[in-house]
């Protein structure tokens, strides 16, 4: 069987003709398999959805209970057969509930990675290497310049700055799903026990993480305005990156803008956004993780999507692995 007959891109997303399903479709389809809950992968309006329990719950939180016609939970490692195609979800280590999807028929196995990372993350199950014939990898940080330092070191820098500027507040920009909870957990692991103040947009997802047994410690809403603002001096506040430009951030005394993102590796990116303390904490694989993972899967062919494709294709070429960009549309520079 030709790999392209098992999976190929269509305007709606990655399509499996024998199974008649899509992976992470960007438009409503009959049957969707969803890797994880980020908005560019998980959209509302599909007739049938298959995803992990956590991803389904997250979609319900974001889009309402009726986000799809029917929803089926996939258990990690358990194979489900759809029209003769064997489908298995494996942990991707990206955010809570994230999975790679293995698609197998006629002795050919393709693994669609979704988004993934290899750095340890206490808020989700770790990435599992799945040997395959074709590996579809993301490439958000697919350039040799992206080498993420250990996240624990980045958190140390944040705590050092908090000690250095006790009269100011530190506002950390972090994506609402995954990054925010990871930053909070890392702070707790580094021994930070004070309440952490969170923007309203994070409250429900933080609550959901806690309900899944991820202990985030004391959290308080960052809501005080007016004369109470001085009470934020010396505190850590976490909000979605978009909140920085909002009037919301004005309530904090002389804030230091921090941003937890893999993009913060590039000084100019930090400068453009007006970030004073960049924290290089990413939920995506860096260059080393991408290339290591491609090797470990043993894939004879690699399809590259979701980000900077050309460098990874070039690297595969040098390594003697067949590779091509997928050119899927609709996935954003998600920025985490």
């Amino acid at each position, binding site marked *: 069987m030709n790999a392209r007959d098992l999976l190929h891109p269509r305007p709606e997303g990655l399509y499996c003709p024998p199974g008649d399903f899509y992976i992470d479709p960007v438009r409503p389809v009959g049957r969707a398999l969803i890797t994880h809950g980020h908005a560019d992968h998980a959209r509302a309006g599909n007739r049938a959805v298959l995803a992990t329990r956590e991803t389904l719950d997250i979609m319900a939180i974001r889009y309402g209970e009726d986000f799809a016609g029917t929803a089926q939970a996939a258990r990690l490692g358990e194979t489900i057969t759809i029209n003769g195609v064997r489908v298995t979800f494996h942990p991707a280590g990206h955010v809570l509930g994230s999975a790679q999807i293995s698609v197998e028929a006629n002795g050919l196995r393709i693994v669609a990675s979704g988004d993934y990372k290899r750095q340890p993350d206490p808020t989700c199950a770790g990435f599992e290497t799945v040997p395959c014939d074709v590996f579809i990898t993301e490439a958000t940080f697919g*350039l*040799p*310049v*992206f*080498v993420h*330092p250990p996240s624990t070191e980045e958190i140390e*820098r944040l705590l050092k*700055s908090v000690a*250095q*500027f006790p009269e100011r507040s530190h506002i950390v920009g972090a994506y609402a799903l995954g990054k925010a909870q990871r930053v909070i957990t890392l702070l707790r692991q580094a021994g930070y026990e004070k309440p952490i103040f969170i923007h309203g947009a994070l409250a429900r997802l933080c609550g959901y993480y806690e309900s899944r047994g991820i202990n985030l410690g004391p959290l308080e809403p960052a809501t005080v305005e007016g004369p109470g603002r001085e009470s934020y001096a010396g505190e850590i506040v976490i909000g979605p990156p978009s909140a*920085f*430009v*909002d*009037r*919301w*951030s*004005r309530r904090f005394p*002389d*804030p*230091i*803008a921090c941003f937890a993102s893999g993009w913060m*590796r*590039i*000084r*100019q990116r*930090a*400068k*453009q*956004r*007006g*970030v*004073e*303390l*960049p924290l290089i904490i990413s939920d995506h694989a860096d260059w*080393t993780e991408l290339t290591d993972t491609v090797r470990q899967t043993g894939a004879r062919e690699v399809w590259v999507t979701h980000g*900077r494709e*050309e*460098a990874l294709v*070039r*690297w595969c070429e*040098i390594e003697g692995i067949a590779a091509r960009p997928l050119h899927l549309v609709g996935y954003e520079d998600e920025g985490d």
Partner: protein
Amino acid sequence: MERFAELLDRLVLTPSRNGKLTLLVDYFRAVPDPDRGFALAALTGGLDFPAVKPAMLRTLVTERMDPVLFAYSYDYVGDLAETVSLVWPHRPRREGGPAPTLSDIVQELATASRSDAPARMAGLLDRLEVPGRFAAIKLATGGLRIGVSARLAKQALAAFGNVEVTEIEELWHGLHAPYMELFAWLEGRAAKPESAAKALFRPVMLSHPVAEGDLEKLDPADYSAEWKWDGIRVQVTCESGISRLYSRTGDDISGAFPDLMEEMRFEGVLDGELLVGDPTEQTRTFGDLQQRLNRKTVSKRMMTDYPVFVRCYDLLQIGDRDTRSLPFAERRKLLEEFVGRLPPERFDLSPILEFEDWKTLEEMRRNPPHPVVEGVMIKRRDSTYVPGRPKGPWFKWKRDPHVIDAVLMYAQRGHGKRSSFYSDYTFGVWSGDPEEPELVPVGKAYFGFTDEELRQIDKFVRDNTIDRFGPVRAVRADRNQGLVIEVAFEGINRSTRHKSGVAMRFPRISRLRWDKPTVEADRIETLFDLLGD
């Protein structure tokens, strides 16, 4: 090295002066000698390693990685030092010995020859992590432009040691990296270093602006007045055959002015204004002087087209005699004799203005005879030369600023406290066909308004955005709609970098004209008229 690298990274992204001072003071406190002294030297431009060239780095890195992958990377990052620091092959930590300290790196680079520099640089990069590699490359290639002036570094030292910044300035040029005796003094472990070196900088005397009602209380007979020239304030120092030209803050700028240095063959210290032109014929504009500023080297052509001279204000030393404790009137007499003996195409006197009362002086201030005058200086005849900005003896009385009415065109988010506000504004004036005029941007301003006005403009920007580019928003600005702002500025220069052909000096917003229709804003010709050439 990690701590120095971290300091650099934070300084680059910290917009506020106070924030930078905290970072510097904490660094001086936390890091031992001699590393902190080398860091100080690096920040104040006191280190130079001619053997390492940027092109060499590119060769080194492409010997170690696929050139195509390097090209993709460099294209994305845009900065060579940063790209190399990121893509340099990663070695597990501590392989090849402990990470080098800043002092190790300075030592290694200082003793490198052109032939072994590449190998030494590669050896250093192998032993460093990403931030350390970036700092080492910037250090080696002299690219440490990180928004810390030598002045700010000296202020941090003053805060660290709880001394006056003028004390640091006075000592500065007699000290050398790694500044161990300076730190010992600042930490109270040793006496103040004696400066035996010659041609040191003397901290300059500064003035206060004339405030409402100041002059009425003063007797004009006690004061002397002269023009305030629009160049840069300098100190000309010649001692025991050593000559130096210093900026107002004690930066040694001799290297940029070899034409002037050649004529500095006397024994004495002068305070004056650096200007372009030939004083026996004409004094040229600040725009012309700018051609000569901030250059490391200067071409013959540059020196012929833009010759510099010093218009002298004061005399601080003659031969061995320190004259700073004499009254101004006596110093002035000595100055007149002294300057009379100097080459007239390089040195002249700032003339004394005759005035009976403050009203006469006010007239002169309003109608200066020369476009390169930016106001008048008023000095007490009996004032000694005191470093710093003492209250009382000297005043500056500036010409009123120019103002124009312009239209807000773009707004950009600010930094720090203002990061949620659109606080940096680009404004334009009308140009072209009077029937079909177009707005051309003529400048940027980010201060001059109150917090309340900032809120109002921010709201206007958010409500009238027509386009966005990253942190910048384009706002509605046409003949029917838009916000007129009154912009005050000190002067205007020709500029090839600006589409309009002119650049304003020190523009700031002086008033918001919510009442004014955009069609009544000024035209570009108003600015051209101010060029004065």
